[in-house]
């Protein structure tokens, strides 16, 4: 059983629950946060996820600010961060890339695509 930890950020409770189920069924350990601020709190609290999956549009602190914050920390400077969002504009992608995101998935995406993207970005992959 692969117990790699994935931190998931989304302000939608059904999305958080659904992502948790899909990832846990695939054998991952999952930590969740409802916005960027809570996500950063988890990271400063010592959580060291292997991959981070984040929405962009969230209250309190959005995904872009969260990514910038995560990149400032030595512990998560190189952690793969996948953006999962309804936003599909080139500008949105450019902003995410500039902030330090590694991957991009536009909602709605299929579970298989989500899992293959996570797997591809895991440090042990390849």
């Amino acid at each position, binding site marked *: 059983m692969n117990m790699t930890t994935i931190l998931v950020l*989304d302000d*939608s*409770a*059904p*999305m958080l*629950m*659904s*992502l948790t*189920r*899909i990832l846990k*069924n695939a054998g991952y350990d999952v930590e969740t946060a409802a916005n960027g601020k809570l996500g950063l709190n988890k990271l400063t609290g010592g959580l060291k996820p292997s991959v981070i999956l984040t929405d*962009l*549009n969230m209250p309190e602190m959005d995904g872009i600010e969260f990514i910038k914050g995560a990149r400032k920390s030595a512990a998560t400077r190189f952690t793969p961060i996948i*953006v999962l*969002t*309804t*936003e*599909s*504009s*080139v*500008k*949105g*992608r450019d902003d*995410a*890339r500039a902030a330090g*995101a*590694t*991957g*991009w*998935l*536009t*909602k*709605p*995406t*299929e*579970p298989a*695509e*989500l899992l293959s*993207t996570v797997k591809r970005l895991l440090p042990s992959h390849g």
Partner: protein
Amino acid sequence: MESGDDRLVLAILAAQVTAVRDRIENNETIDLMWRTTDVLARLASLVPELSRRNPGADMERQCTAAIANMTDISKSLDDMAFVQAQRQDFTRQMADCVATALIRLGAPAAQQTSRFCAADLAKLYVCAEQREIHDAATAAFYHASGWSAQGSIQPGKTANSNGML
């Protein structure tokens, strides 16, 4: 500027759309899918016991088939719930944008620092579809008014491909 009565209508509409948004957020369909998946998982874990208590090749074959079916249905339900949750999230965000705009339009005159315009509305968008609807509605409005269309908000190029950045 809208009259006091117009603002009241806008405030009421904002409350109505907010209620719709909350209803979207609290849709029970996904929860039912998860509960069904959990029940199937529990049943699948009990089936081997049935086979142990009633040994026989036919029983074993039926139990194996039942477990395979339940596992397959559970996975399909979880996958469907995942896609449904994303669609629901998408719709909720569109409703949230309308509610936010209506709240600002319906705010009492004393609380309005400036007039809320189409460009302000565009700043609330979170997806390309909203921008496309905005542009189509703007074009239709100007066409119906006989005015020349102003600039598009330019949803920009849509990046459809998922993957690495």
